[in-house]
């Protein structure tokens, strides 16, 4: 999923002149915050952060949230539900569009962030922190999950490419 214009460039170079490190250790890529301490599913903008032995925390990055529109509703499967990578663990509604929250991992849903379910605005305000969505138990190494971007340079290049793509198509402001 790397953007061809950025593939292979170091993180800071790919991020461009507008980028830099912001509050809370977040990198700013073309105006959007990005956390490099986690893995990303590039098609769905879901991030995955190790949260303990066999446990990961899952959320959506700022770009994925912005291109969804203002979040009106979030609903989640119940704790204990099995998760399959590429299949829904809940639904998101924004701009009257109900779409799946697609799991980036295979495992079991352990915890739902009830705060974000009650106030979806949290995911917009703090997508990499308090706006996390669920925690899941996974098999294997939580820091190296299949199908996810893990290398910071690769993540940065992918993210910068997506910002450009969405700007060019008019989905986000120039």
């Amino acid at each position, binding site marked *: 999923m790397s953007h061809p214009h950025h593939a292979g460039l170091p993180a800071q170079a790919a991020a461009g002149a507008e980028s830099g490190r912001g509050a809370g250790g977040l990198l700013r890529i073309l105006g959007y915050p990005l956390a490099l301490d986690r893995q990303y599913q590039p*098609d*769905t903008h879901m991030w995955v952060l190790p949260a303990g032995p066999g446990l990961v925390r899952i959320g959506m990055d700022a770009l994925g949230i912005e*291109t*969804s*529109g*203002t*979040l*009106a*509703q*979030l*609903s*989640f*499967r*119940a704790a204990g539900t099995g998760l399959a990578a590429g299949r*829904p663990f809940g*639904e998101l*509604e*924004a*701009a*009257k*569009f*109900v*779409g*799946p929250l697609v799991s980036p991992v295979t495992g079991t849903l352990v915890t739902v962030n*009830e705060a974000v*379910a*009650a106030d*979806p*605005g949290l995911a917009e305000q703090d997508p990499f922190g308090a706006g996390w969505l669920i925690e899941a138990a996974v098999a294997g190494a939580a820091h190296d999950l299949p199908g996810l971007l893990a290398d910071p340079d690769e993540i940065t290049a992918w993210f910068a490419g997506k910002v450009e793509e*969405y700007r060019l*198509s*008019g*989905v986000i402001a120039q």
Partner: protein
Amino acid sequence: MTSGRGAAAPATPASVGLLRVIDFGQVTPLRSQTLWHAVSYGVSGGQPATLSFARPSAPYVCVGYHRDLAEVDRDYCLAEGLPVYRRMVGGGPVYLDDGQLFFQICLPAAAVPVARLDALRLLLAPAVAAFRSAGVAARLDEDGEICAGDRKICGHGAGQIEDAVVVCGNLIERFDHERATRVLAVADPAQRAETLRLMRRYVAPTPVDAAAFQAAMTRAYAQALGLDAAPGKLTATEELCLADLDDRFTSADWLDGPRRASRQAARQVKVRAGVWTVAAQAGPAKVVASVVAGTVHRAWLTAPGLNGDTAAAERAVTGVPLPEVPGVLARFGEPGRQLAAAFAGADGKRI
């Protein structure tokens, strides 16, 4: 969201490049929902992109996938014989009747941009073209509503059902504003009256020829998607799925809706994007207000101690952007602070 039954068989090579067009005609209220949901499962399973039309034979109420059933006045609906169903796409509770022709465009999810705002604009644009073709000066406004001037002329909702994306809308030939307001559970008389007033002001029918509109829709979607339109019908698998959906949509579990967190207590009603009413309370203070484009349009305030200042406070907040309301009310002392706390429950962005 998953189907109770397997999806349709994969598309044949002949169906590639095809826009299947299904006119279901006048159907029962239940079928006016379940038919296009069955189509969505079919498209998810490999049937071609499909444009469908249906007109309900009788009035009913439909709530969006995530919405609380308590937003509907169930007693009134029961007394009036109005069924209530829950759809799998977004938006609020709506009143539907035979004065509205409903359309649905359904595509494989892989053919639609992942960015939902992008997808919505792309899939609503042909409908706008069809309205214009039918003689209505329609446009897609900055809020993503299909409007003529500042009045909404087409309700829409969208969703992904398994591996298909569906966008629904309507041609409103006639609109019963009063009943569309009455089916909503709105306890406060001032809020109800204001909602009706705004509904009349901001929701407009466009009584164009329905057949011409359908023809224009077919042309517009075929052209925009680069597909050849051809009349079609449900497959046998979609028919089976339809039977499942009929059962599902009439079950109490489905009507209750998905598991979701309880939300704040303010009663908010959206009339169109950017236009809404709210009734909220904080302690003894009570606010009823309408909001247009982020600014208080009208307000009815109640707070102990406000006494003779009630009218002054109502005038003071009128025309004020919502974020500035607490500052304006601060000059009314403790009652003003209580009213500001009630206003804090208003958040039209997430209705």
